[in-house]
């Protein structure tokens, strides 16, 4: 889990990375750049990447354009992670990478060398549900089920974020500890769309798990 104390470090990381990518794009001469462009229509560029998915390493030879989402769904058969929009607009593809939830459709698989990825299949199974999964069943926190894995992965990470003191848009005092409230949960879950409209039930499911773990 990335605590608030690490914010500065990651910001510095972004600055460093930003400078490096500027240098890289500026460096190749035009001829090389054109070659690189035409390579887009040529043979796909493959790269080897090892992902640790639900605790188990998987090494893949992937087209570098493959998203983390498609690597999971099409190459590793973890179809529990859903493709709803492929544009980071719906949250159905939410997975937990190194403790933090991300939209796996907005991330290329090759960016995740050595990363630990937790998908819905890694939280629990139909026979042995994770408490959040069981709460969704109990509160009917879904209907068609397509956004559900993303909602559940997001919910698990949201509770960790609140506990870690990471503020949200609705946190009154950003220096204080955010409340484990329905309002905080609704705000933080708003990147996960449920067109069936199970929100009221989903918030009750998450609140129940939050209260249980607090006790």
């Amino acid at each position, binding site marked *: 889990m990335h605590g608030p104390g690490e914010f500065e470090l990651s910001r510095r990381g972004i600055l460093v990375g930003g400078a490096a990518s500027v240098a890289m794009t500026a460096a190749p001469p035009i001829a090389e750049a054109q070659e690189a462009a035409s390579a*887009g*229509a*040529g043979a*796909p560029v493959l790269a080897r990447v090892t992902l640790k998915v639900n605790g188990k390493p998987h090494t893949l030879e992937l*087209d570098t354009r*493959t998203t983390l989402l*498609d690597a999971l*769904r*099409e190459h590793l*058969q*973890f*179809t529990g*992670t*859903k*493709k*709803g*929009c*492929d*544009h980071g*607009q*719906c949250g*159905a593809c939410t997975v937990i990478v190194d403790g933090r939830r991300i939209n796996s459709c907005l991330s290329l698989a090759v960016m995740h060398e050595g990363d630990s990825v937790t*998908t*819905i*299949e890694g939280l*629990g*199974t*139909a026979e042995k*549900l994770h408490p959040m999964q069981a709460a*969704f*069943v*109990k509160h*009917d926190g*879904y*209907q*068609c*089920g*397509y*956004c*559900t*894995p993303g909602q*559940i992965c997001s919910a698990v990470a949201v509770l960790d974020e609140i506990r870690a003191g990471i503020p949200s848009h609705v946190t009154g005092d950003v220096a204080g500890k955010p409340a484990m409230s329905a309002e905080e949960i*609704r*705000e933080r*879950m*708003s*990147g*996960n*769309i*449920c*067109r*069936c*409209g*199970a*929100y*009221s*039930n*989903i*918030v*009750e499911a998450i609140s129940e798990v939050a209260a249980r773990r607090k006790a």
Partner: protein
Amino acid sequence: MKFTTPAGTNPIDQGKIVGKPTPRIDGPLKTSGGARYAYEHNEAVKNPAYGYVVGSAIAKGRISAIDLRDAKAAPGVLAIITADNAGKLTKGSFNTAMLLGGPEIEHYHQAVAVVVAETFEQARAAAALVRVDYAREKGAYDLAASVDSAVKAGGNNAKVGDFDGAFAAAPVQFDQRYTTPDHAHAMMEPHASIAAWDGDKLQIWTANQMIAWGRGDVAKTLGIPKENVRLISPFIGGGFGGKLFVRADAILAALGAKAAGRPVKVALPRPLMFNNTTHRPATIQRIRIGAGRDGKISAIAHEEWCGDLPGGGGENSVAQTRLLYAGANRLIGQKLAVLNLPEANAMRAPGEAPGMMALEIAMDELAEKLGIDPIELRVINDTQVDPEKPERPFSQRRLIECMRTGADKFGWAKRNPKPGQVRDGRWLVGIGMAAAFRNNINMKSAARVRLDGSGIVTVETDMTDIGTGTYTIVAQTAAEMMGVPLDKVKVKLGDSSFPVSAGSGGQWGANSATAGVYAACVKLREAVAQKLGFNSDDAVFAGGKVRAGKRSVPLADAAKAGEIVAEDVMEYGDLGRKFQQSTFGAHFVEVGVDIATAEIRIRRMLAVCAAGRILNPVSARSQVIGAMTMGAGAALMEELVVDKRFGFFVNHDLAGYEVPVHADIPHQEVIFLEETDPTTSPMKAKGVGELGICGVGAAVANAIHNATGVRVRDYPVTLDKLLEGMPEFA
């Protein structure tokens, strides 16, 4: 089995399992990622290729040239299908436009090609290399500008008495226009299919609400016998009417698979869905009501103007006005203009959803004009018979009880009828209500039931579960009928090799499909009784046993020598014509409107529903809160914005087409009135999934008016429409 007379007492009335709050039996699969949706049948389909759809860049015209050279030369490409090489395609019975366009283009993003390649990435990259030249033609894209060209259309044109005379003579006259914009289903799972050929047999794993319609239209479109087509759709990631029909993904996957000689997967990219598939069309509605000072309606007229592609239909937003309120003189009409926008079609509660958005604001406005409480106005104009045919009673109609119960529960008495009076900090607070109304429809539906030697009952029907909870209510029905616990029932759905069901649409699924299961179970009970030597009329099925008199035998014993299979179909007589079968409800909404910015927040929502027997209160409640959520979206944010120059929906993704998110929706309450309707089926149930959306938009709009005093008649009610009329504040 034919249902021709109202149901008497039957095993469903025991209510040991049916009617009990039951968590979904498919819940553990859905929450653990084990439910397989259309694009995910990786165990069944090895080594698939990937198809990527290219959509038309114009709304109307012709393809003048198509250059596939670069695309064909791109790595991994196996085949490219266009209208040039697809062979003869016939438009499906349920489609308005061709699913593969060219050379003629009928709407923007109509599919013009599918590129099939070894990988998704290769197919997508090659699809971007397909170069199409178009000859654009002038089209009509503006509904308001097309009103004069609209012609009488649809099934809701009716005149009773003398509307013009009665309206002119009425002491109080009300006349207003309302508009609702185009809406998108925007279900979470994109339309997706995997197609595989085995010789001339075609199998498609797809996302489809109506398996038998789909099978028929796949066969018709491709020109192959229906018997050679199998559709499989065990889990569907939302439909709302958007998956009632075969769409381009299924047809292009089939064509691609044929050409590539391999199974092919096709999912519509999200940004293609809004213009490539169907949507709920925009409406312009005029409502006129003539009433006495006592609130009694003497004249009511509701007219609709709508647009669609040639051969399409209107929205039918006037439908509910034929039945909801009394009044001796009535005028109902609908007119349809030709628009060259994407294909208009059914979306959750077609007709009533946008119709009630207008009618129930009109009733609120009329109540204000009369100085009568909005609930009382509706009570005064209640009718227990079809107003057009007074000899035809409603089978059940408890609208008044829904409104009174809701008023009590929601604290309606505390509402200040004068708008703009209630403040809570920076918020202006308002309360609004609306009636809910949606017809009940019964559809012929069949099922097959198997009993095996271990006492397991397996139900097979091509019925679908689009999130509605079908798996569970089908299991509850079979368990109740056969006298076994729920975990002894297995349910198999969404396969065209199973008996043809009602399918999911028009809120007919729950009652119709379970009635089909009921019929099959009656047959199975007879077969079991016979096998065990009971008189089937005397046999009681309970506790996993069959009992008559003092003799009791385990149910499983009947299948010891081999599985027993029974199949039947439930068909309907004329009860639906003798009685008007409808579902009723009342919506209550409290909103806060920011005094300075006019930002609107929904604070509380309640629906009270009377919809026959509620088969599973858990999933029925979810259907209603989901519909309330979609209704809140229609009230506050949902609008496909039309580019009137080029003829397409501009906001064609989930960032531009806004739907409600968690932060928009408060805790929601639902109350079901205890009710059974013996005229609908032996289940005595009715639909409820669409009732929940009917009226909720108007309840939101009425609450906003109560909060601010601003009346918005053009949906969605966004803050820019409120700002000018907002009350002054210090």
